[in-house]
């Protein structure tokens, strides 16, 4: 139980997907201009990370590792992610049109989000079992959502700040992200 809590805490805060591991920077900078969009993206990513990691973990353990085909890992994982994202999109459209409307536009972008493939690969590299895998993927996704939420609020303020013209937009957002990353990296002292 204590191990699981440490994994959850690290995935959520100290080794945060965006600020600690620097995965998923593209949506972090691209979709954080409006808070509602950022939260939609965060929820969609959390959803996809948990489902795809469970599927890729099972595929790796029961097929790839058993038949010595680990060299196919990248190819299999990215295909699973791409097709699962597509399937989730179709499924949501049918089952919950309101949720689809809220998340729909973000789903296709998730295929090329490093965070999804990164978490799927990390679970294999770290040799996690089923409960660790589930906790790690869930809290990585929630960590992504949490940072997207904080950063989008921060960015709405930064956008109106008087900065030199060349620094408007991306550069100043990156510097604001650095301040946030500094805070997150020091949270390890809590344990």
């Amino acid at each position: 139980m204590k191990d699981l809590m440490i994994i959850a805490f690290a995935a959520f805060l100290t080794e945060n997907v965006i600020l600690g591991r620097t995965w998923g920077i593209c949506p972090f900078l691209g979709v954080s201009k409006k808070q509602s969009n950022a939260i939609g993206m965060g929820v969609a990513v959390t959803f996809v990370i948990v489902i795809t990691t469970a599927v890729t973990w099972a595929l790796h353990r029961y097929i790839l590792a058993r038949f010595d085909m680990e060299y196919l890992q990248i190819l299999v994982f990215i295909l699973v992610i791409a097709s699962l994202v597509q399937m989730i999109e179709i499924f949501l459209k049918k089952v919950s049109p309101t949720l689809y409307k809220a998340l729909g536009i973000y789903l296709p972008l998730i295929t090329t989000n490093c965070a999804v493939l990164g978490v799927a690969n990390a679970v294999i590299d770290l040799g996690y079992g089923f409960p660790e895998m589930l906790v790690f993927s869930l809290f990585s996704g929630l960590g992504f959502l949490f940072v997207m939420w904080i950063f989008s609020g921060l960015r709405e303020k930064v956008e109106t700040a008087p900065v030199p013209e060349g620094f408007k937009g991306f550069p100043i957002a990156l510097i604001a992200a650095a301040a946030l990353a500094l805070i997150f990296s020091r949270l390890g002292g809590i344990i």
Partner: protein
Amino acid sequence: MKKSQIFLNGIIKENPTLVMLIGMCPTIAITTSISNAIGMGACVIFVLFFSNLIISLIRHIVPDEIRIPVFIVVIATLVTITQLILKAYFPSLDASLGEFVALIVVNCIILGRAEAFASKNGPVSSMLDALGMGLGFTLAISVISLIRQFLADVLGLAMFASPVGGFIILGLVIGIFQSVKLLIEKKNELKKKEKEKKEKEVSVNKEAVK
């Protein structure tokens, strides 16, 4: 477009890291040392070169609806080859790049160039585009890693070896790059205006003489 222009396009005018602002994840993560940056750049150039070449060769055979999955399979195969080569011949580089070798698959630069350029142009132009874009990426991350390594190793500021330093330096480099670009544009505009003014004056003088 001229062939040389296609090549130079990726290095300056449409530099993937500094102008188009794509492929940010490896840019922040692996720019801790110059050797990492050059290693990553070489991997990206290799994958981009062959993916652009293969995709431009098969662009007429692949049906439009399934082109993205086909591109992804091509790219994933090339990344697997890269990973195996690194593991066999450059184990120390493989260890320091870590999971970011596998993440080249989802690097927006590669899929972006496949979709925007290689699926519409011939193999020769696509290869040149890949070389230009790859070199542009390599140059940008080399500059960033040079600054970070200098600050972290020579001046002993350990913060710059962590992601925090990556965010700050990337932000500053892009900001300075854009500021210089704006300055040059403004200067050019001023020159143009002055020229127009002079031309007007000349024409007015001519009319007055008449």
